[in-house]
Each structure stands twice: as C-alpha cells, then as structure tokens.
C-alpha cells in the first residue's frame, strides 16, 4: 500500500492514508464516532465541522471534515454542536403578513443592527457564502437579495459560532427564505388540485387493474 502520513485529531496523533478525508481517517480510529458525522462525504448535513491548522501555518480554518483531504502534520479539532439559548422564537404562521416583514425581522433578530463588519462569518463559511453581505442587505431591508445568498447554506452554524454579536446569520437567511415562500408561493395547479380533493373528487380506486407489464 501507499505511504502513510500522520495528523492529529482532537489532540491524538493518528496514521492517515493520503487521499482520504479527515472524517474517514477519524472513522478508522478505535473509538466509535457518535457525533460530528452524518452524510459522510456528500457535504450537505453540516455536522462534521472542524478547525484545521495545516503544518507550519499559524491560523486555523473552519472546514467540513468529510470534504477535506488529509495532509501530513495537520491539526484538527472537531466542533461540537449545541443549541444556543438566546434564540428568538417565531412560528411559520407569524410570517404570513408580508407588510410586517421589516419590523418583524428587527423584532426577531434585533442583533442584526449590531453587525460590526468583521467578516468573521465569511471566513468561517465552508460554502463560501458572502454571509456578511447578506446581513448588510437584510439590515437595509433588501430582503429578497439577502435571502438569495443563502440558497446553498447547509446550516452548519459555523457563521453563527463566528459572530461576536450573536447575529446567527444562517438563521436570519433561512428566516428570510422561508418568509418568501410562505408569502409568495401559491401555485395554481396545487390550489386547483386541493380544491378538487376538498370537493371529494379524485378518490383512488385501489382495485383498478394496472397491466402487469415488465417494462
């Protein structure tokens, strides 16, 4: 087999096969993983977030362990997931009235006004979303443009962790995206189908004989 390299994961030095991801290297260890793992490589669940410092570098970067390839001398520490206790609750129902969009956003996320443009969130984002710009757009009331930036967000919460003002940027983004769908999306085909069903039409005959063809 090929040469092995060594990396340190949460303070423990382990052998790694070049080409493997940090996550798969950690999986080969002798303790079972019970957290910071989910989709295992697809990069969509956001659970495998970690801090990575490459050999010889001073600063560490936040990464997804399942999408980061090991390099000799890397130092990795995984970041636990926790539920912050300063959340502002809202219900989807509350978002229905688009005329209240601006005051409601300010009420739900009062910290938004305190952004100090430190770019911490931008640096943290493994998806390279311009998070800070999104917060600036939201604060200035350009909600649609702000929402659009969070289209590919995987809710890893790294920007939330990075933010010194507790703005929870990804949750602001998701809030805005949800409000948009809740307020605007009324597909005609769906309305018509629901109405047909409400009238009692379109019941299914479970005995209908479908041909037993193979194709």
């Amino acid at each position, binding site marked *: 087999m090929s040469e092995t390299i060594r990396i340190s994961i949460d303070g423990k030095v382990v052998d790694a096969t070049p080409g493997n991801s940090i996550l798969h290297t950690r999986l080969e260890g002798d303790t079972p993983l019970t957290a910071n793992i989910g989709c295992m490589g697809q990069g969509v*669940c956001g659970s495998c977030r970690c801090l990575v410092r490459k050999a010889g570098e001073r600063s560490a970067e936040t990464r997804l362990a399942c999408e980061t390839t090991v390099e000799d001398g890397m130092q990795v520490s995984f970041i636990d*997931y926790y539920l912050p206790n300063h959340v502002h609750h809202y219900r989807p129902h509350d978002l229905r009235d688009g005329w209240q969009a601006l005051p409601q956003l300010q009420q739900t996320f009062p910290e938004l006004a305190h952004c100090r443009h430190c770019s911490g969130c931008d640096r943290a984002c493994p998806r390279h979303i311009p998070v800070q710009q999104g917060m600036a757009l939201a604060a200035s009331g350009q909600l649609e443009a702000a929402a659009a930036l969070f289209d590919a967000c995987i809710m890893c919460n790294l920007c939330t962790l990075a933010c010194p003002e507790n703005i929870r940027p990804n949750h602001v983004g998701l809030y805005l995206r949800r409000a948009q769908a809740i307020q605007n999306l009324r*597909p005609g*085909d769906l309305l018509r189908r629901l109405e047909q069903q409400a009238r009692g039409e379109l019941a*299914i005959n479970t005995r209908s004989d479908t041909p037993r063809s193979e194709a």
Partner: protein
Amino acid sequence: MNSAIPYAQALTNLTAHAQPPLRPAELSRSALLAQYHPDSDANASTLLQIGPSRGQACHPQLAALLQSNALIDGFDLAGAEQRSTDVLVIGGGGAGAAAALTAARSGAQVMLASKLRLGDSNTVMAEGGIQAALAASDSPQQHFDDAMRGGHQCANPQLLAQMASDAPGVIRWLIELGMHFDLEDPLSDGGKLRYKQAGGCSQRRILCYRDYTGLEMMRVLRETVELDPAISLLNRCPVVELLSHEDGSCAGAVLYDLEYQRFMVVSARQTILATGGCGRLHLQGFPTSNHYGATADGLVLAYRLGAGLRDMDAFQYHPTGVAWPQRLRGGLISEAARSGGALLVNGLGERFIEELAPRDVVSAAILRECAAGRGIERNGQLGVFLDTRALGPELAQRLPALQHLADKCGIDPSREPMLIYPTLHYQNGGVVIDGNGQTEVPGLLCAGEITGGIHGRNRLMGNALLDILAFGRRAGRQAARLAQAARHKSSLPPLRGGIEHVYRWQRQLALAGLDASVQAPLLYPGQARLALHRPTGTRAQEK
C-alpha cells in the same frame, strides 16, 4: 475480485467509438434480475425463526440483528433519569420531524430523540425530489397506478392510495412551513411548479428544489422543530430499548444520553419510531449511499416488542454509486445524470442496458458485466463507466451536486467518464403499519423508511420523501389523539413500563437455540462499538 479490464485499456476502448454500440441482450429482464440482482443471491435470504414474522424471508445479516439480545438489562433502569411525555418521537429525519410537528400541533406535549443531531439523516441527502400529482393531465389515481406497478404489485393498496392522495396536502404543508420548490415560471399562475420525469412514471410529476431537495426540506423542518415550544429536543440520545406494560403495549423507551453518558427512561403515552433504514449494514458487502445512522435500530426494537415486519428481503440497490476513488465509494450519483443523457459503458466500450430501465434491472445489468469480466478496474476498485461526456459543458450548471461530486473525485465529467458500481440505497420493506401508522403493538407507531408495505418490493424515485411526510403527519396526529384520550381517563403522568418483553424474548432465543451473545441495536456502524456506561455506586453523585 473477478477479472476485469484495466482502466487505461477501458478508456482506450471507450474512445475507440464515437457512439458506443449496444451489446445485444442475452437475458430477459426477469432472468437478469433472477441471476444478478443482489436480492436473488442464494445467501441473501433466510427465514426468521422467532418473533411475530417467524417463517418470513429476511436478509441473514438483518435476521441476525432482529434475533439478537438486548443491549441493557433491568439493572440499567434503576439509576436512570426519569422523564415523561404524551408523545415520544424517535428519529430526527423527515418522518420524525413531521410526526413531532403534527403531534405538537394537535395539542400533545412532544419529546423528539435522535441518535445524531436532528436532521443528520437520509432525508437531508435526498437530491432528486418528491412526487405529487398536480398537473391537470395527472391524477392521484395515475400516481397510485405507477407506484403499484413499480412495486411489482406488492404494495398495500390502502396505504399507497393514502400516500398518493395526501401528496397535494403535503406540498401545501411544506410551503406553509417555508420550503421552496423549483419554478418553471415564477410570474405565472401563482408560481408555475417545474415537473421532472422519474423512471417508471407515466407523467412528469417530480417536484424538486435544485438537486438538493432533501437539504431544503430538512433545514426548514429542523428550524420549525427547534423553534416549537411544545417539542423538547434530545440530540445525541439514541434509543437502546423500548419499554412495555404488562399487557404487551408500548410504554415509551430507554435512551442513552451520550453527553452525560447515562440512561434515560422516557415514559410516553404513545411512541413513534422514525429511525429510518439500514444501508450501513452493507448487505451483501455492498457500499451504501446512506447516512452514518442507518443501522436498522428501530426495526430491531419494534420486532422484539412484537411488531410484525414485511418484505425484509427486498432492498433497492441504486445503479450509480461512486466506485472510484475508494474514499467516496457508495456515494450517490443521481438518476438525473442518466435522464440527462449519460451512458453506461463496460470495459469493452459497449453499452449493455437501456440507461433508464427500472433501477433493479440496471443494477443487475451492471453486476452481470462485472461478473462476466467486462467490468473495469481502477486502483483496485471495480465498476463500469458512467459516460457523462454527452452532457457537455452545461453539466456544471444543470447538475451542481454532480459537478461538486466529480470535483471531489478529481474528474472533469465533461471530458472523462466516472467509475460507478451499484450502491445499497433503500429498504423497501419494514414494520407493518395501518393507515395511521399504528403497528401491531398498541402504543407503538412507525413512520418513514422503517415501515413496509407502502412501496411493495421496489420504490420509485420521489415516493420516499412523500411517504415519510404523509405518514409522519398521520402518525403524529394519531399519536396525539390517542394520548389525549388517555389523558382524559387519567391526568396522572403516564405509567412507568419495564422490559418484561426482553425477558420473554430471551427465553425465545434460548428455546430456538439462537446465539444470545449478539446484541442489538447496533447504534453506530463502525468497527468500534460504543461501551454503554453502567450505573455504579458513584452514579447517584453525578447529578
């Protein structure tokens, strides 16, 4: 490994033709399935010896877990933390979230326990989309007929009809929670939804959000659950056993709280299992597309408590899993690649099957090529080519998730083929339920991939996301209703149950001469097993 054609040689063979010729079919589709589908393998089925589905066929690896000993015994409950709730939902995927939200909405006090973090699941990984018959030319009836045929006429017609009829209501519910769907034209008719074609369907009826429908769905569901004051969320609390009353009904569950390393006994009026599938068992040695937590835990526990199962020998192997590089092995390449024109090519540079034939047929055909020595070997990995070159330079834009995956493989899909091999994708069968998600055990409901009967022996693309929400909501509503009725009878907290059913089960294991040293549920799939921290004298001081 079977003999195979080396990668470099296969590449030369591929480029020798402008259009790869189609190899004449030697076998009928049914013969192909019978000889090469992994389910048909002689060692892929055994008969269950004990339990409610005794005598039924089941995959041996799963049977070993189903007919195993519990992880805990009575002593473990002694020092455990005690909690109680109206409805306990177990599993943090789409089915669990839908059940919890609906039960809470119906007035119940809800607890949701998940092994990983809420949302780390198969649901978040879904790419393709969700079926709903909305077009004027389409109907729930046609949706039903397609799925019935796709499932080889084995589905429970009542369940399937409920799923197809619920579909429009499910889409409305998702929009009300704030989920987006791809639109053909946002400005006409209130937002004109885009319909995509799925294999085996008479109509275009897949709704999607880009090629990350599951991510869009799960992030909205998770946020709603986390912000719902009627739901207490327990992340990293896998269920290790169910609890029973003397009459055999379900009384809640025993969880293991990983953070504090201790057991937690949750007494519940109603319990909903939504723990998903079993891809991480790597049945028949196959790689899998599933998330880390797909280890059949709920199936094992429901069966031990007396819930019947069905179709436990029918699994879906998706034709296009990544075969090379090894570290991404099993990762899914969506069917969208083949609907977009990607070809399947063997080591001789020949096509060997219609790319959009049913999934089980395509997978069997790939396995036959590999068995016949026409597979391709690259650095020890065996597979066939998925030739994406025809998709052209627009691929990156049309299929961003595929491009992202190809980037990680270090492949330029507009110029090179990808090496693929079938991957274990979906559990077709599962726990038997009625139209409200109730199992044969009173007090126990199930929803999602853990259940069986809705899809028969083969599921069509887009019907899983629909099924988990349709039945997640039904189970949530029913559990809330039953819990409320029980509360009317007695306002005292739900009675504490025990693990009498485990002792009964152990006697059955002994009588049947089965190995009682095997313990399940597995909880985590890796080599290393989690050691559950036992209550000791020091335990009382912990708090």
